[in-house]
């Protein structure tokens, strides 16, 4: 049996929405290099819709796959829906993660939350 599901390997080998969004209006970074995982999410939100999203990740295979899947799940969706994305949904969409890798999906959820928070704080000012 392989370490990861086919879906995880697919998203790891061909990550979707990878890179930087120069005109992002919400950016969130979570994790730290000490622990071996950092995720950065760039959101471009217009009319309460996640028009575009990109990510950069320093981390293991499942961290890269989780970020990639998370971007797919929120791209084009209303902000409210993005806000409700759970790590469980990310892991399920990847056909599961090994137990000790579940924290990678948590990090993906937190990265999106951080980016949304940044977006909101920019709206307030």
């Amino acid at each position, binding site marked *: 049996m392989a370490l990861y599901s086919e879906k995880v390997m697919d998203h*790891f080998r061909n990550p979707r929405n990878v*890179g930087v969004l120069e005109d992002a209006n919400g950016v969130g970074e979570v994790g730290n*290099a000490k622990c*071996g995982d950092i995720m950065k999410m760039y959101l471009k939100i217009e009319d309460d819709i996640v028009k575009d999203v990109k990510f*950069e990740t*320093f*981390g*293991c295979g499942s*961290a890269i796959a989780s970020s990639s899947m998370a971007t797919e799940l929120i791209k084009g969706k209303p902000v409210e829906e993005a806000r409700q994305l759970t790590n469980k949904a990310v892991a399920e969409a990847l056909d599961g993660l090994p137990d000790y890798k579940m924290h990678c999906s948590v990090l993906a959820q937190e990265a999106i939350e951080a980016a949304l928070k940044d977006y909101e704080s920019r709206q307030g000012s």
Partner: protein
Amino acid sequence: MIYADNAATTKMSDRALETMMSLISTTYGNPSSLYEFGQKAKEVLEQARRDVAYAIGADPKEILFTSGGSEADNQALITAAKLGEAKGKKHIISTAFEHHAVLHTLKKLEKEGFEVTLLDVHSNGIVLPEQVEEAIREDTCLVTVMYANNEIGTIQPIREIGAVCRKHGVLFHTDAVQAVGHIKVNVEEDNIDMLSASGHKFHGPKGVGFLYAKKGIRLVNLIEGGAQEKGKRAGTENVPGIASMATALREAVSGLDEYKAKLTPVRDKIIKGLSEIPHSAINGDLEHRVPSNINFCFEGIEGESLLLLLDDKGIAASSGSACTSGSLDPSHVLLAIGRVHDVAHGSLRLSLGEDITDEDADYIINSVKEVVEYLRGFSPVWRDLVAGKTKFIL
């Protein structure tokens, strides 16, 4: 596939495999049985003991067969601890980058009231005999220092450390799992009292190893039962496995010069090639190093994703990244030589086999360069380093 993880395990040699298969079908008697069919197995077992002893310069009576390196390490440490305790000596000296078979046994002994001093192994991954001498106390009952490190391949000054131990009358054990069959090891010349080795690291089978214990050391049992192995390790002997290990060891030791001559230039070529990757660093001393080992850190990337992509390219390697071990901390070996967490996560170990070719070396160099560059391309850590927001460590 290019198998570059020979420090994890090796492929059995043809002759080791032949020995094992033929013994499984022809010599399945129990060496403890008195009829000739059992005694035949006993003969095979004792010939293996002579072969193993000869390979490391020991007496056959000093060889105890075990299930592998971990069991041998456990038995050596527990023995030295019990012997020490009987004399009121409960201090043990070791190093910070030992194998977990040693470190975890030491932890257990600490809980039983032993005091453990772990020596610094410096940035080059080498402990000095002077450090050992300084650390020795009146109540020191054991010094245990590995012969060659499993992750960074550095060879320790075992002979000199052994001499220091002899001078102070302290038992000296070495975990030689990565050394036996790879470099010259001689327990007599190297002043070793106890030594652990494992068959599958030198093209023998898994599940078999041995412990050398110098004459006069009364081993403490880990497994109670029958009188096998002079009553020091119960359980019917794995005769085919033991004989197969002995065959592999005989082959490995007779070919040591050739092995070194073959691997060293390939190893050095790969080290040179990978050094061209910006912000990378070799781990461990370049000179005192087993011929098969290459270990690098690459800043801005994480080791597991590196391994997975190398696997896609047909290269089997390993890493000291936390993500490959299921723990939160990266390799204790890399931390022991002073690599910080951020950098230790981005490590790669290649441990070459005799079948490696010059073309393989080129392919490995190019593949690693390509994968490191690719992963850095979307690493936020690398972006910050390049932008000058954080400082390069390597």
